[in-house]
């Protein structure tokens, strides 16, 4: 049972290890859960989940595993051989869920025995899961049998009511939903994600006095002064940020702004340039895209060598002509296609990713997104915490 739960967690992408699972067993043995399902839930959560972004996933898996009977996908009736259902069980099930008044009503309808008899017949006749309708046993119908129905003389099969209500509710509330990794993010979260890119290095000439080192080596040297120098320590990562601006990007302007401000404070070597829809022979240093701010893409390629990491930010949504045809650009006449410029950029910068503020599930509906994604060799990531994280990992590899 617990093993199945553990495997389900891993399958759902909660990074939990055998070590933590064993720790949970140890905690159970130490009597920390005290046969209380709430406490078990809290204990399992404290033991198995180490990231608040995974808490929501955990809640969902927990609900699924320990409430299997309530899950439409796993209707218990489809697994149980209904002919074998003991009457005792049926009776218990009904008694648990019926109030005194309801029981009285059942008596009025011909008694408990008759109701149970009918239930058993129906269970035998029924082959598949059923929802709605007025005869079969399933959910949300008006038949006397099944869950969440309206018939007052109904018998509930597998619904929250048969369990400790408050216990089920805790993980059903999904308190941690807004901490899940796929939500949009503020600059602070972005900074945390961008920090993956930090690579501190002491590079260049040794120009700083290493005070601690000097003292240590002098002391070890029995008091004879021994000076030590080190180079200054700084983040050695260099980022070239290309931002799509205007047009369809207007919807995502706050998100891009946030990313930009987060990146700006995080990297010492950050160069940002703008393009409209697709980079062509000209890029702009300013979002207003005036002629004076223009810089030729070839110059960019020459100035910033392959040690820079390239990040595109754009929705990649445009007319296919803008990508494939010379002269397809909306703002000016381009001799070479957008596609060829993109290829040049990608070839020049081996570390490149594309961040797309559009929701990932919409990507398939736009032809150019698919084309650019192919050109990027799948290194297109959604502009969410998870996507950003994956993108930074890819840049670091």
């Amino acid at each position, binding site marked *: 049972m617990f093993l199945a739960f553990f495997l389900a967690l891993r399958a759902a992408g909660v990074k939990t290890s055998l070590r933590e699972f064993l720790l949970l067993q140890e905690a159970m043995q130490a009597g920390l859960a005290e046969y209380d399902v709430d406490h078990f839930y*809290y204990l399992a959560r404290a033991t198995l989940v180490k990231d608040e972004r995974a808490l929501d996933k955990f809640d969902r898996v927990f609900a699924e595993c320990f409430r299997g009977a309530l899950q439409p996908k796993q209707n218990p009736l489809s697994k149980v051989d209904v002919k074998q259902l003991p009457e005792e069980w049926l009776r218990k099930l009904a008694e648990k869920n019926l109030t005194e008044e309801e029981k009285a009503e059942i008596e009025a309808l011909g008694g408990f025995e008759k109701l149970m008899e009918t239930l058993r017949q129906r269970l035998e006749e029924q082959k598949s899961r059923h929802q709605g309708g007025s005869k079969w046993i399933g959910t949300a119908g008006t038949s006397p049998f099944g869950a969440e129905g309206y018939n007052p003389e109904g018998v509930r099969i597998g619904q929250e009511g048969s369990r400790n209500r408050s216990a089920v509710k805790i993980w059903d509330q999904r308190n941690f939903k807004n901490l899940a990794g796929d939500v949009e993010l503020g600059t602070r979260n972005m900074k*945390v994600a961008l920090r993956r890119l930090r690579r501190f290095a002491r590079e260049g000439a040794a120009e700083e006095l290493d005070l601690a080192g000097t003292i240590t080596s002098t002391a070890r040297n029995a008091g004879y002064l021994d000076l030590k120098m080190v180079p200054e320590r700084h983040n050695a990562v260099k980022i070239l940020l290309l931002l799509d601006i205007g047009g369809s990007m207007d919807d995502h302007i706050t998100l891009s702004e946030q990313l930009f401000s987060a990146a700006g404070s995080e990297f010492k070597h950050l160069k940002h340039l703008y393009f409209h829809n697709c980079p062509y022979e000209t890029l702009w240093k300013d979002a207003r895209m005036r002629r004076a701010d223009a810089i030729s893409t070839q110059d960019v390629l020459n100035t910033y060598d392959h040690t820079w990491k390239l990040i595109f930010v754009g929705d990649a949504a445009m007319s296919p002509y803008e990508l494939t045809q010379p002269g397809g650009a909306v703002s000016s006449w381009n001799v070479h296609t957008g596609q060829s410029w993109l290829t040049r950029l990608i070839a020049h910068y081996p570390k490149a990713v594309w961040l797309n503020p559009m929701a990932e599930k919409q990507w398939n509906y736009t032809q150019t997104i698919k084309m650019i994604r192919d050109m990027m060799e799948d290194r297109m990531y959604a502009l969410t915490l998870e996507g950003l994280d994956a993108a930074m990992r890819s840049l670091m590899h």
Partner: protein
Amino acid sequence: MRFEGTENFVATDDLKVAVNAAVALQRPLLIKGEPGTGKTVLAQEIATALGKPLISWHIKSTTKAQQGLYEYDAVSRLRDSQLGDARVHDIANYIIRGKLWEAFEADNAPVLLIDEIDKADIEFPNDLLLELDRMEFYVYETRQTVKARQRPVIVITSNNEKELPDAFLRRCFFHYIKFPDRETMQRIVDVHYPGINGLLLREALTAFFDLRDIPGLKKRPSTSEFLDWLKLLLAEDIGPELLREKSAAKLIPPLHGALLKNEQDVHLFERLAFLNRRGA
């Protein structure tokens, strides 16, 4: 010995389970949550509740893991050697014990708080893996192994500025303090200001949760800020009527400086108030 919260601290059920598990199984407890939800206070309260001394180790960006174990004070040894002090011959005189050593050597297993572990360098948690796991470390200068007499209760807090390495996380219990709901908040206030005017509290809670619900706030006010604000309200003797006044000009709650901590948020609020006034 179980932790059930104290008279100064309202602990939710899930927090109690996590704390008790960490105490019983002698594993570190990692606490995360919005700022101002009582992460640091928790360690003090655990210490009080369990009757143990508290040792706090506050982490800064320059803190090294080694400083928690011990430091070799080479400078004083240098000075002593030049002054001809006899102490200089025993290197142990210059080993300064860190917080972890202190906690390991204590007679009564203390509560060790490692506060804001995310402030330190990315490698910091990794450097403490073995020490937290086996509760022992080796002092190279004196060639001795320091071993914990009793395993201390270790509470680690993080503000999520850096991600912690997986290997480190595997060794901890984890609890995320989520922002308290209204009822929990009421209990918290009752603990801090017993006998507060019920009407005032109700109005203040409403104003506070309304404020937190405003979209676009850069920093939403936290529990500790709410408590500060209440204190101010009491000190200034502001009545519930004033809080309830929903007239447009009064949209900003009195003494909002305790709740809103940056000028953009105040500005946003003033703009909303202005729009409201025009609409009215």
